[in-house]
C-alpha cells in the first residue's frame, strides 16, 4: 500500500565514474538535510553548525588562537599576569598559570577533535573487525566475543575509561593517543553489536544464497550488503558516541587521568584547575572551557538526534505537505441523478484531518516497518 514507488538501485545501472561518485557522496551527505524538517531539521542544522564551527576552530587553531596553549609571556617577553581579567589583550582572561584562556579553549578544541576522531577510528576498526569475525565465524568465537562485549558494555563507561587510561599511562604516558585508546575501550562494543548483527543477517539473506548458487562470490555480495547496512546506522551512532566521548575525555581530564597539561590544552583539565578559581570569584577560567564542552557535546547530540530522526524509520516523522485539492471534474463526480437527496454543491470542501489523529504512520498501517528502539 506504499504509494511512492522509487526506482530501486540495482545492478543494471551504469557504472559510476569518479566524479559521479563524489557527487553521490555529497548527495548522500546532503540527503538527511534535505529530508529533514521541523524540529528534526532545526536540531540537525543547529548541531551541524556547532560541530562545523568547532571543527574549523580545531583545524585553524594556530591561526585563531592568539597565543600558544602553554605560553605565559607575550612576544615582547613580558609575562602575562596570573588570573588577568578578560580584557583587550586576553579576551577570556588568563589562568592561574598565566595561560591565555581563549587560546587554551581554542587549542582544546583541537585536542578534543583529535582524540575523538582517533577514538572513533580505533573503535570503528576494532568493532568492525571483531563484529565481522564474530558474525562470520560464529560458534564459540561468536559466543565468547558477544559475552566479552556485553560485559564491557555493562561496566560504567567512565570507570572503564579511567582504568584503561590509568593502566596505559603507566606504559606510554598521558598523551592524546592514551586518552583515545581509553575512550576506544568504551565504544568498541557498540560498533561490534551493529556489525555483528548486520553480518549475521547478511549471512541469512536469501540472495546471498542465491548468489552462491549462481557461482558469484558471496563475500562480495555480503560485503556490499554489510556496507549499506552498517553505513546507515554508523553516522547516528558515531555522532552520539562522539558527544559521549567528549564528555568522557573531559571527565578523564577532570580526574587527572587524561591528557597531561604539558602535552596539550584539554578542557576537562582546565576545568579542574579552575575549580579553585571559581571559589575565589575568578569565573573566566572555568566558564569558557565548560561552555566549550557544552557547545560541542550539544552540537554533536543535536546532530545525532537530528540524523536519527531522519534516518531511523521507527521514529521518522513524515513531513506534512500542504495539499491543494481541486474540485472534482464533472466526469469524476458522481452524477446528480444517481445521488440521493443530500448532495449539494460545496459539500465536498476538503477537510484537513489531523487535529485529533496524530498517528503519523502511513496509510494501511500494517506495512510500515517497525523499527527497534533508537
Amino acid at each position, binding site marked *: 500500500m506504499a504509494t511512492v514507488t522509487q526506482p530501486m538501485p540495482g545492478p543494471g545501472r551504469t557504472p559510476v565514474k569518479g566524479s559521479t561518485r563524489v557527487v553521490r557522496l555529497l548527495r548522500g551527505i546532503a540527503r538527511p538535510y534535505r529530508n529533514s524538517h521541523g524540529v528534526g531539521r532545526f536540531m540537525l542544522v543547529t548541531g551541524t553548525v556547532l560541530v562545523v564551527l568547532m571543527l574549523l576552530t580545531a583545524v585553524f587553531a594556530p591561526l585563531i588562537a592568539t597565543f600558544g596553549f602553554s605560553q605565559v609571556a607575550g612576544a615582547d617577553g613580558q609575562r602575562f599576569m596570573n588570573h588577568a581579567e578578560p580584557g583587550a589583550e586576553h579576551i577570556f582572561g588568563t589562568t592561574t598559570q598565566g595561560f591565555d584562556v581563549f587560546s587554551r579553549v581554542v587549542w582544546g578544541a583541537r585536542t578534543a577533535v583529535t582524540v575523538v576522531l582517533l577514538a572513533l577510528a580505533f573503535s570503528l576498526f576494532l568493532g568492525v573487525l571483531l563484529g565481522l569475525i564474530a558474525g562470520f565465524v560464529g560458534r564459540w568465537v561468536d559466543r565468547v566475543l558477544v559475552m566479552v562485549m556485553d560485559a564491557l558494555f555493562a561496566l560504567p563507561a567512565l570507570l572503564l575509561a579511567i582504568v584503561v587510561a590509568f593502566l596505559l599511562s603507566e606504559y606510554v604516558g598521558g598523551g592524546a593517543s592514551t586518552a583515545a585508546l581509553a575512550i576506544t575501550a568504551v565504544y568498541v562494543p557498540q560498533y561490534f553489536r551493529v556489525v555483528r548483527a548486520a553480518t549475521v543477517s547478511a549471512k541469512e539473506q536469501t540472495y546471498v544464497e542465491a548468489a552462491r548458487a549462481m557461482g558469484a562470490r558471496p563475500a562480495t555480495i555480503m560485503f556490499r550488503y554489510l556496507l549499506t547496512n552498517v553505513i546507515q546506522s554508523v553516522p547516528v551512532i558515531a555522532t552520539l558516541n562522539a558527544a559521549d566521548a567528549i564528555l568522557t575525555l573531559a571527565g578523564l581530564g577532570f580526574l587527572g587521568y587524561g591528557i597531561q597539561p*604539558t602535552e596539550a590544552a584539554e578542557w576537562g583539565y582546565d576545568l579542574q584547575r579552575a575549580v579553585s578559581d571559581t571559589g*575565589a570569584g575568578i569565573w573566566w577560567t572555568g566558564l569558557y572551557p565548560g561552555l566549550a564542552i557544552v557547545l560541542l557535546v550539544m552540537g554533536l547530540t543535536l546532530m545525532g538526534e537530528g540524523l536519527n530522526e531522519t534516518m531511523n524509520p521507527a521514529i521518522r516523522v513524515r513531513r506534512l505537505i500542504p495539499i491543494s485539492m481541486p474540485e472534482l471534474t464533472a466526469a469524476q463526480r458522481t452524477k446528480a441523478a444517481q445521488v440521493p437527496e443530500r448532495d449539494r454543491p460545496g459539500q465536498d470542501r476538503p477537510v484537513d484531518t489531523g487535529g485529533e489523529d496524530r498517528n503519523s504512520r502511513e496509510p494501511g498501517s500494517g506495512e510500515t516497518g517497525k523499527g527497534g528502539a533508537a
Partner: protein
Amino acid sequence: MRTRRFRAAAALAAAGALVLAACGGDDEEPADANGAANGDDADVEEPTSELPIVLGTTDTVTNVDPAGAYDKPSWNIAYNVYQRLLAVPLGETDPQPDAAESCDWVDDTTYSCTLKSGLLFSDGSELTAENVVHSIERQKAIEHESGGWELLATIESVEATDESTVVFNLSTADATLPYILTTAAASIVPMSYPADALQPNDQAFGSGPYTIESFDVTQQIQLGINANYSGDRPLNNSGVLLQFYQQESALKQAIEEGEVMIAYRSLSVTDIADLEENGADRGVNVVVGEGTEINYMVLQVSREPFDEPAVRQAIAQIIDRDAIAESVYRGTVTPLYGPVPEGVAGHVPSFQEQYGEPDVAAAEQILADAGVETPVSFDLWWMPDRYGAEIGDMYGEIERQLEDSGLFDVTLEQLSWGQYSTVFSDGSMDAFDLGWFPDFPDASNYIVPFFHTENFLNYGYSNDEMDQLIEVIRTDTDQDARVAAIEDATRIVAEEAPIIQLWQRDQIAAVRDGVTGVEETLDPSFIFYYNMVSGVEE
C-alpha cells in the same frame, strides 16, 4: 561511654550553645580527668567551655599503628595519640624528654632512657619499659610495607633492664638516634598490640593526649580526650574532628561555610591568595608557620651531560627561584638556596653565596671555560600527581628559563608517581624532580640521604670529603661540631651542584575567627599538636 561523651560535646557545638573558650589552660589537668570512673553522670560533668575542634584536610591517613605508617598525616595522628620517649618541643630544635624522664648516651652505640613513672594508656594499663621494647621490636618484626621501620635500622636491640629503664644497642654510632626516637616510628604502643600484625585503626589507643573515638579515613576521624593522659602538653579543647576532603577547593568552601574551623593541608595557591585577600570578610584567616618541606631537582651525575660539573653549575647559575616562587607559586613557597631549609639549624643559603643573582652571561662563561658545547640537551622528568598541580607549571617555567638562555635544550617528560618511584633511582633519567618532608627537624635529614656515596637516589654522586663530613654529622654527639659539618657540606653541595634545591614551603593553615593556637603548632617539626588549638567560632 567515650563515644557518648564526645557526641554530647559535638551536639553542643552544633546546636550553637556557644561559650567562647577561655583559651590558655596551661598545664591544667583535663576537667574530667577522673570522669571515666564516674560513669553515668559524665554527661552532666562535661566541660562546656571546650568544644571539639573541627579540622578539615585533604590528607590521606593510612594507619594509626606506628608499625604501619610512614606518612605525615598518619604520623600526625600518632603524635597526638601516642607518647614517644623524646619529643622536640614546639619552637625548639632539640629533642627533650616526653615519656622519658631522661635519656643519655652510655657510649657511642648504647643509649639509655629512664621512663617517667605513672604513665597510663587510655585503657588504664601502665606504660613501662616493656612497652618501649615491644614497640620497637614489633616495628622491626612486622616490616610493614607502609611502615617506617627503616628509620630504626641502626637499633640492633632494645632491652628493658628494669621496669622504667630501656637500653638501645646500636649497630653503629648514630648521633641522630634521639631524633629518631622523636618520630612517630618510635611511638610507644600498648602490650596488647600484636607483635606480628597491625592493630586495627579503630582499636588503636595510646598514652598520648587523645584517643580514637571513631575512625573512617574516608570521611571523619574523631579524637576524644585521653582521661589518663598525664604528660606535659596542655589540653585546650575537648576533642578533635578530622574531616577529610578530596579536593582542595572543597576544603576551602568548607572553611568559608564554617563547616570546619581549621583547614590544614592543603589549600591551592589560588585558594590561599583568595583567603589572604578576602578571607577576613568570611571570617577566615590564613596562618603561616615555618615549614620545612622542600622540592629539588636531581641531576644524573653519573653520566653525560651532568658528569661535567660546569653543566650543573651553569644550571644553578641560570635558575631564577624568585620567578618560580612568585609567578608559579605566588609567594606560597620560599626560594631555597641550599640543601637545609631555613628554620633548621645548619641552614646556609649556599647557592646564593656561590652564584648570586641568576646570570645567563656567567653561566655562558662557566660553560665556555669548561669547553662545553652548547646548547646542552637533556630530559627533565617530573610527576604530576605527587606534590601538587603547580609542579607542572614550575617545570614549564624552568624549561623556559633554561631554553631562553640559549644554553640548554630541555625536553620535559612526565611519569605518574607509581612508575616514577620505581625508576628514578635506576639512573635512566637525565634530571628529575623530587620533594622531601623531613622525618625529624634535624639538618642531617637533609644531607645524609642525599649526598653520601650510598644515597637513596643512586645518582652517582660521590665525594670523599662529603662522606667524611657525613660521618661527623651522623656520629658526633657534639651538636656544634655537627652543625659546622653540616654547613661545610652545604657549601660543597652548592659548589658541585649535584642537586639543585628549588623551594621550601611554609605550612599554611586557614582558621576561622576565634580559633587560636594554630600558629604555635606550625613549627619546623611538622607536627600539628591538636591540643594546642582552642576556640569556637562565634
